[in-house]
């Protein structure tokens, strides 16, 4: 048996896990992965707190820090990282395959920033514009009223400046582009609401 081992060496080894998992959490880019790593950090933190003798803090960390925080965080990530696009029901029914291809292309562009796409269909153009005005939607995907020969026949109107910038950097990578982007009107301030 090794005798010159310090009696609380295991303490040092276990406590060293906490900064390790904390660094792991901070280098995550994908919010969903960060969610899982937060759970690991919570488990390690509960271990460290109980090793150091703070049983009540460990229990609080496990129940609130791990259980409640990651559940709320999952709900928050799910409801905020989404782009809502409005379409007209008649146009989708006229050419469903084309719209599926457009959705796939938008999903591919959004996936670099871990955003999801949610499509909402409306009966009339007036409903669509009303939904855009009250900020229910982030963008519209419609057939162009005056199609240009050098442009795709569908246009994607984006209300938010930041979202438009993101899509305009990603759109040239998609071949062939199925839509062209309409930038937000200048009166619209770059809103932060989602």
């Amino acid at each position, binding site marked *: 048996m090794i005798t010159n081992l310090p009696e609380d060496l*295991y303490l040092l*080894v276990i406590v060293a896990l906490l900064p390790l998992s904390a660094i792991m959490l901070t280098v995550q880019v994908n919010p969903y*992965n960060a969610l*899982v790593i937060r759970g690991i950090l919570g488990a390690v933190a509960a271990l460290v707190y109980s*090793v150091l003798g703070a049983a009540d803090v*460990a229990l609080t960390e*496990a129940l609130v820090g791990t*259980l409640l925080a*990651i559940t709320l965080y999952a709900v928050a*990530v799910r409801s905020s990282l989404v782009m809502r696009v409005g379409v007209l029901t008649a146009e989708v029914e006229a050419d469903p395959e084309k719209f599926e291809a457009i959705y796939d292309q938008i999903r591919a562009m959004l996936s670099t920033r871990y955003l999801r796409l949610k499509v909402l269909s409306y009966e009339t153009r007036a409903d669509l514009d009303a939904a855009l005005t009250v900020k229910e939607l982030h963008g519209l995907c419609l057939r162009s009223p005056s199609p240009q020969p050098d442009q795709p026949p569908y246009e994607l109107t984006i209300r938010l400046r930041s979202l438009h910038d993101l899509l305009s950097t990603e759109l040239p990578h998609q071949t062939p582009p199925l839509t062209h982007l309409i930038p937000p009107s200048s009166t619209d301030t770059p809103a932060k609401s989602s």
Partner: protein
Amino acid sequence: MNLLLIAMTLILLIPLYEAWQDDDIWQKMLAFASVASKTSIMILCISVLRDDWMIGVVGVIILSVGNAGFMLLAHLIKRITLQ
């Protein structure tokens, strides 16, 4: 006991490394499940080592409640990824 706890900590590093290097969310969840059950068993070991009843109770509560929370999280993530 000291050496056994250090061995357990070293084994705990394997799922930590796996969670760090794999990008698939389910592989990370698997590593998380592994870490969660291992840490609560280690808390139990330490409570027996120090003969501290209070830490042991915390370990058992974390073991049972943490697993329940993990199931909740698994279902939430399934809903998210399926959209």
